[in-house]
């Protein structure tokens, strides 16, 4: 509040302003603290250069090998598959809601369902899938049913509402005059979607994709409950796998002294870097677009 000419009236107000400033910088410090914390605990690994080795080597505790390669592969496969599954569906759903393809009354009924989806906890998705999806997969394709496929199907469901909301906002931000001009030229709603809305909303779509990918990478419970948590590199979609988040949860639950415990800070650092990069690019995309407009 320093930019206004009136000074604070008394001491209490000054105190309040200091408190507000303090809490803003506290958030700043919290993020730095989190980074410093992972750096500190992963430092022994970083110093010996072993961190980059850890990222690619397999997990063989008996041979003294605590590589997190399989978990990175598991995370990558599961979240990529989830994003690939969720993207077309979300794009279709957002177009359905915003591009005038459907009757208004139908949209009015469908949209609240998507809004409700944002509020369904991940643990509930995991629980439902354990008793509905996994037995089905077991019957349909054999194996235990706890697999990469099960986890990414449920993750796709989890990240779909995030994408739908972002895409809808991006579609809605397209100027109304452009739409009206296209209508006046006799364009169908589908043509407006393909030639106007999609190109105009490109940055919003990319930002939504990145954000949803971040959610998929960071989710713990679905992968923990559905992916089977095996420690090998996943070789096919019906094989079990373990993610970075699941690995942290599982190792924390067992013990806190062994070298295995050290390895989870390497996992944590990797996760931190991945999510920070995703958020960074997401912001870049949004801000550069805003600067242009």
């Amino acid at each position, binding site marked *: *509040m320093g930019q206004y000419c*009136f000074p*604070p009236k008394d001491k209490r107000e000054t105190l*309040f*302003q200091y408190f*507000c*400033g*303090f*809490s*803003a910088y*506290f*958030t700043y410090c*919290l993020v*730095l603290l*989190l980074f410093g*914390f992972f750096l500190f*605990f992963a430092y022994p690994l970083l110093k010996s250069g072993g961190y980059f080795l850890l990222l690619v080597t397999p997990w063989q505790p008996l041979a003294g090998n605590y590589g997190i390669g399989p978990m990175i592969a598991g995370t990558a496969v599961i979240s990529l598959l989830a994003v690939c599954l969720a993207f*077309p*569906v*979300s794009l*279709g*759903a957002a*177009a*359905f809601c915003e591009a005038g*393809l*459907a009757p208004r009354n139908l949209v009015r009924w*469908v949209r*609240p*369902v*998507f*809004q*409700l*989806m*944002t*509020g*369904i*906890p*991940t*643990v*509930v998705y995991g*629980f*439902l899938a354990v008793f509905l999806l996994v037995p089905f997969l077991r019957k349909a394709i054999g194996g235990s049913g706890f697999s990469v496929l099960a986890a990414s199907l449920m993750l796709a469901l989890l990240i*779909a509402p995030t994408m739908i909301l972002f895409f809808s906002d991006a579609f809605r931000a397209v100027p109304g005059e452009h739409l009206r001009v296209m209508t006046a030229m006799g364009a*169908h*709603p589908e*043509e407006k*979607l*393909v030639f106007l809305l999609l190109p105009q909303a490109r940055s919003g779509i990319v930002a939504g994709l990145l954000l949803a990918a*971040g959610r998929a990478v*960071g989710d*713990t*419970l679905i992968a923990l409950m559905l992916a089977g948590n095996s420690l090998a590199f996943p070789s096919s979609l019906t094989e079990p796998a373990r993610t970075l988040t699941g690995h*942290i*949860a599982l190792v*924390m639950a067992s013990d806190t002294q062994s070298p295995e415990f050290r390895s989870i800070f390497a996992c944590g650092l990797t996760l*931190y870097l991945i*999510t*920070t990069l995703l*958020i960074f690019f997401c*912001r870049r995309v949004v801000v550069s677009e805003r600067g242009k407009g």
Partner: protein
Amino acid sequence: MKAPLRIAIKSAAFAAALGLCCLVLFLLAALFVKAWPVLDLRLLFGDTPPLQAIRGVRPVFDGLFPAICGTLLLVICAVVLALPMGMGAGIHLALAASPGTCRRIGFCVDILAGMPSILIGLLGFSLILFLYRYFPFITPGLLPAAASLACLILPYIIRGTWQAIQTLPPELLRTSLSLGASPVQALRHVLLPAAKPGLTGCLLLSVGRAAEDTAVILLTGTVAAYGLPSGFWDPFEALPFFIYTTAAEYGSQRELAMGFAASLILVGLCGGLFSLAALIRRTVQMKIFTGNMS
């Protein structure tokens, strides 16, 4: 564009939206059907008389009452810890900070919002381990879990407050300042009351976020069976953790059905809060829009 292509695009959009809708409704229906057999008072209190359970005279053994209480206590503690900080930071960013500071802190808020919750749990757990050496009374429990959850919901509160104040018409602040109010007085008597719907929306959102999260409390102090916590350093039960453990180690069909019932309660709680928040946000947007028009 040819007609068949148009029809293909339209039907793809219809299939995507309606398919997703039906899938979600099917899942919710399945949840309800599976939970139906145990939906009664015994679900909450087990064999303990409800009045005695609520007064804490007798413990509840096979009911959801301790888990629901634990979740409520946890959420209340987390919000009490995060709300002053979050609102203070939001106010600072909306009114006082320079654009550069806003950009830097905004980036950090985004990072914190996108942070996997298990990392925050890991931070909390390691801090507890570290502090335990010097202060032996610090153990995993209600307060550490609430503090970790507070870090999780902090970015939501900051963003919400920031947005709510920034989207107000600028004349509000200018008028009250020119009438001789100090910035803090203007904030307290004019801006915050005007921003109330937005603030309520962000509060609901963060409560929902705190109630649904499992990964944080998994590492910082929840246990499967404890009863009501009696202090801030006590372990506690929570609904999400109950659901998680039930999926892995249920003993009977009744326990399984109780897991479904707990999921139903949690979906009702979080879904209700999120929908309410969305509704409030929409009405706020409409109000601002019509306010500018008139």
